[in-house]
């Protein structure tokens, strides 16, 4: 688990795994100490979608919240009651600098602290591929929150498929520079894989948004081919 959360904080620092898109280099998430707080925002594309899915005034827990970019945005624009869990010391310090309440720890210990349904939404952005026990974390998210919101990179994207076919090598996201044999390890999966998985564990997808290179795309059938990133709101199937 700790390995996975290390990967998480790194992934945020480097970039969202926008597959095959060297242009989409995101700004570093960790703010310079003592830098003035930003007054205008340009959220990472998947975080902007997540922010849209969360209603004003909700209670939100962000897992692996980095420097608190998302919660800070939600607190200031949607008056949510926001909390975060973050593994890195620098991340926690940056969150406190933004005036946020954040608990340092890995996802397992952090989530276990919270009583059932203590949040409306529990957010996990761009972290799923790094989890060693995604099923457990997802079910914990839906124990602690009424809803879970996840964003993850889609290895089913056509260029990934083409790369495997043409080069015979497992495709790698530009945001995930580590080769397969080096920690932190990632698990490649696709939108279709994830949808099947949700069905298996009795979780229903209540909202879905697809992005390609940071832009929203309107697709129904071939999303697994065209989307680089998916954002899902999830609920336990009644």
């Amino acid at each position: 688990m700790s390995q996975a959360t290390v990967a998480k904080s790194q992934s945020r620092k480097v970039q969202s795994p926008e597959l095959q898109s060297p242009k989409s280099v995101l700004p570093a998430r960790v703010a310079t100490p003592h830098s003035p707080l930003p007054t205008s925002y340009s959220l990472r594309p998947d975080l902007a979608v997540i922010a849209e899915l969360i209603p004003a005034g909700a209670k939100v827990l962000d897992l692996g919240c980095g420097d608190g970019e998302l919660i800070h945005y939600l607190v200031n624009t949607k008056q949510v009651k926001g909390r975060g869990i973050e593994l890195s010391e620098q991340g926690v310090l940056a969150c406190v600098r933004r005036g946020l309440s954040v608990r340092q720890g890995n996802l397992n210990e952090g989530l276990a602290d919270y009583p059932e349904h203590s949040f409306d939404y529990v957010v996990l952005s761009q972290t799923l591929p790094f989890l060693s026990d995604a099923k457990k974390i997802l079910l914990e998210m839906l124990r602690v929150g009424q809803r879970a919101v996840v964003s993850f990179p889609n290895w089913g994207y056509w260029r990934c498929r083409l790369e495997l076919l043409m080069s015979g090598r497992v495709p790698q996201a530009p945001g995930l520079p580590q080769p397969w044999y080096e920690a932190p390890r990632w698990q490649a999966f696709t939108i279709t894989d994830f949808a099947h998985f949700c069905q298996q564990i009795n979780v229903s997808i209540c909202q879905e948004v697809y992005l390609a290179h940071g832009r929203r795309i309107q697709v129904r059938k071939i999303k697994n081919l065209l989307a680089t990133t998916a954002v899902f709101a999830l609920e336990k199937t009644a």
Partner: protein
Amino acid sequence: MTITQTQSSVNDSVGIVQPDYFTFAEDEPFCLESGATLGPVTIAYETYGRLNAEHSNAILICHALSGSAHAAGYHGTDDRKAGWWDECLGPGKAFDTDRFFVICSNVIGGCYGSTGPASINPATGVAYGLSFPVVTIGDMVRAQRKLIDHLGIDQLLCVAGGSMGGMQVLEWAAHHADRVKAVMPLATTAHHSPMLIAFSEVGRQAIYADPNWNNGDYYSKGKRPDAGLAVARMVGHITYLSDASMHQKFGRRLQQLERYGYEFNTEFEIESYLKYNSNNFTRRFDANSYLYITKAMDYFDLAQPTGALAASFAAAEAVKFLVVSFTSDWLYPSYHSKELVTALMVAGADVTYLDIQSTWGHDAFLLEVETMTRLLGSFLDRLVREEGVARPEKEIRRQGDRETRRQGDKENGSIDPALLERLRSAAEVMA
């Protein structure tokens, strides 16, 4: 309470400070948790900075086992040693005395001006010794509360402290939640563990074993149980360091020796260091106070009376917590703080928690100045924003004084003390 800036105060110090004394329970005795009573009770305290018009900028600092009310500044122009938390307390520092009114008081049972076993019992005209009633962390905090009442402060903006100071901080949050807006328990625990009780007992046994201790009746005898107290301090001191910090600081180096002497003189640097510090300690601390204060820590268990820690913080839902532990602190290991955080989450409190990477062991809360300044400073900035805390009115001669001080800084060149000196002075005030 008089604070003046002098040229001798460098590094944005609060300058020369003097302790004040507040006495209560002169008519009605102060009732202790044990059922015993004490009176009159005097509390020695120092204050830094100025109270604002709304009385909303007050911060209480709680000291550790061997600390005193002297948290910052100097007691005189020839005083070489600043208060125990001077690095975090002063103009522009984490506890910014330009913005906050900071109070630090000596605990009851202590030996730095507050009523303790070395004080004269007015009923008998001689020092209390072991007839002094056993006090608890809860008693110490209720005494502090009397002081806060006396200073006209309805609600403290924050209560902060490490180690035993952190226990007092948690006591404030659990049992006086209506009097605090935020708390910072640092490198501490909500209940003293068996290992901690064990170390306390070793220290106490060392004191009991000193023939000069004489069942606590030594004040008029001319001989103090220094040998016992020194051993107690050495044991304590070891627990404030870490394996890594001892390797780093002392290694196996010999003190002014080329090779082993094959004899029982002080040979290793670490031996010499412990001896030097514990001897210093006996000159400034009272053995009976050591017994009373360690006993107070041993009794500390916030999970009581229900056994559930979360239940004890039920009233603290509106209190903001900044909980800090240190990775190499084996005396109050991080799991103590994590348990506390879990209980606070269940209680629905607003909690920020950080386990700071450090090799300094328990001492880290005084030594990791840079991280602590960032963390505490940011947390206090947030409190100021959220609670709308106004700055105190400016002192008229402030500006000139600051300039004098800055000039002093320049003339003195680098004012950061060497790490050994920091370690040493931290050790002096630790537990």
